[in-house]
């Protein structure tokens, strides 16, 4: 009996599934944007951030009257952080004639697997976070908001490490993915030019928890500064383990986590004094960014990270491009409009695309002082 009921339930869910998959709402009074993000899977945290941030952006644009009198609407699809699913999502977006452009994907793997499909359809894929050095250059329809690593890496080596932190001997730990590799390579390159000694370079695979062995090994090389190229979660764990080792005279700088509040929430006293490069600051003076960060926290259930902030800006960029085009909005035209856009300023700072389609950003230095991120320099520090 139970068996039969189970079978019936299974069949019903399948039918409902198929029906709802076929459902279609045609509405010409809206502009639709696609969002490809890892809603499930190992990167679900960032996918959730994308979902919340992009929806907030759309709500804000619509509350202000929409674009060209039309409302914006999002179509979110889950790519699971899997390159194969990412290509399927890409094909679905491409086939849905109403969708004008796509925000996504989170990982470079997914974005790059989907890139040829979007390119063929002359559709913009504006990735908030993909920072593989080859991604944006893959075609004229690929754009990356995150910022080129050949700008941030040298900044970290020359200004954050050598000039601000007074580093003489620096060790590096980086996250072994496309972003971590290119980021740390750029640091090393500039460090060699400016005579900053790199004592050792260690990497780790995503999900690593125990860094005591790595840190013990690094300590043998006797650096005065440790540069962490990674996101907030591993950074906090490393900071704690440094303190547990009693390694108090080490200066820690970071590239990647930005001014994530989660570092302070999780790290407490152990992360005090960590300095990082960041393209933007969330302070009460910077009203838009501050309001956004507060609202994001209530909606997402965790504090703002740089990835979600970039996703937020990505939607505004697309809406501005559509707005500039006026009546003749086509997929192809959006790409041209994006690369021609010179005056966009989002919560993550000014964004101007290079010829390849990525951004060379300017950076600030922020440091944790009394459990709060404090801006230590302004953009003119680079001069």
């Amino acid at each position, binding site marked *: 009996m139970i068996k039969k009921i189970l079978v019936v339930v299974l069949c019903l869910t399948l039918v409902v599934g198929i029906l709802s998959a076929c459902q279609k709402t045609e509405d010409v009074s809206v502009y639709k944007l696609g969002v490809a993000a890892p809603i499930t899977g190992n990167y679900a945290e960032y996918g959730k951030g994308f979902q919340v941030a992009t929806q907030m952006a759309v709500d804000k644009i619509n509350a202000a009257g929409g674009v060209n009198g039309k409302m914006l609407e999002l179509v979110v699809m889950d790519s699971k952080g899997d390159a194969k699913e990412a290509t399927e999502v890409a094909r679905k977006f491409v086939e849905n004639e109403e969708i004008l452009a796509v925000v996504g994907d989170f990982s470079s793997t997914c974005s790059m697997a989907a890139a040829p499909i979007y390119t063929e359809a002359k559709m913009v894929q504006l990735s908030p976070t993909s920072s593989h050095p080859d991604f944006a250059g893959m075609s004229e329809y690929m754009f990356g908001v995150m910022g080129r690593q050949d700008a941030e890496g040298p900044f970290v080596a020359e200004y954050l490490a050598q000039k601000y932190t007074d580093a003489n001997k620096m060790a590096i730990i980086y996250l072994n993915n496309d972003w971590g590799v290119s980021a740390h390579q750029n640091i090393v390159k500039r460090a060699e030019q400016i005579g900053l000694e790199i004592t050792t370079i260690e990497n780790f*695979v995503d*999900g690593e928890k125990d860094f005591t*062995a790595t840190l013990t090994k690094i300590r*043998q090389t006797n650096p005065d500064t440790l540069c962490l190229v990674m996101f907030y979660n591993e950074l906090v764990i490393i900071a704690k383990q440094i303190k547990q080792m*009693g390694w108090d005279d080490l200066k820690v700088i970071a590239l990647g986590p930005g001014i994530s509040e989660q570092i302070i929430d999780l790290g407490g006293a152990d992360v005090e004094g960590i300095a990082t490069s960041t393209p933007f600051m969330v302070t009460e003076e910077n009203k838009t960014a501050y309001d956004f960060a507060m609202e994001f926290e209530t909606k997402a259930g965790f504090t703002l990270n740089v990835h979600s902030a970039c996703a937020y800006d990505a939607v505004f960029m697309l809406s501005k491009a559509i707005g500039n085009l006026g009546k003749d909005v086509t997929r192809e035209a959006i790409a041209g409009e994006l690369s021609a856009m010179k005056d966009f300023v989002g919560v993550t700072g000014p964004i101007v695309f290079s010829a390849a389609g990525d951004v060379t950003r300017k950076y600030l230095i922020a440091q944790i002082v009394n459990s709060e991120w404090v801006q230590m320099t302004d953009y003119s520090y680079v001069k």
Partner: protein
Amino acid sequence: MYILEQLVNGLCQGSIYALMAIGYAVIYGVVGLVTFTYGEIIMMGSFSAFYYFIAFGDNLLFALVAGFITAALVGVIVHKVCYQRFLDAPRYISLICTIGMSMFLKNFATLVFGSEMKGMPTFFEGKFISLAGIRINYLQLMIMGIVILFSVGLTVFLKKTRIGMKLRAVSQDKKAAALVGINVKNTTLLGNCIGCGLGGVAGILLGVYYNSVLPTMGGMAGLKAFSAMVLGGLGSITGAAVGGVVIGVTENLGIAFASSGLRDVFAFALLVVVLIVRPQGLFGKKGN
């Protein structure tokens, strides 16, 4: 000196692996089935302690009890869904069930608890003892202590108590156990719950030691527990404990001499080599 320090690092990490492996060994011994849900049991234990700390303050001892109970309760569900029905069936069926269950628990945790990393309270803020220049902090000492306590306690429990003897009887031969009047069904369930409870405790230690609790933390942890158990020899509690420590030490020494990105390569290479040379594991009996 440097090697000694790395050895201590390895011992501490290895002792957490050991506790996880012991739990796994109990489950495997009694139920007789491979499970891929164990990592998620560890994760559930960790989350239960996380919420316990929020609700009732930072008392580690009670949190360990709460974690044990929660993990054991999840163990009951896993037992009902994945094992009980398939005890006599080919084992790959329950294996797929446990893979499904693991996926279920992981996604359930993501939906309910949130996908972002959560922190644990700090215990013994930075205190340490120095042994011949090597620092061992209180947290590491406490973790090793708890692990030894649980392993010894479990061994005594299995050897000296009636229930323990029943558990051993069931793990050696289910049919013979049934013949001498042991309720195999309930004993299996109990054994599974104890194993899961140990996993939950290991999960809490994992969460406290690394100060991070995540829905995805179970995957690698479960795999290491599984590897450590097989390395030690199937069903052997001592073997599992030694297997865990050996894997921990190998990984850390591997990092000391090669790249840290290759951590799991060392662990699995050791496993493969040992199994090829000694197919029954370090402490397993031949023909097992």
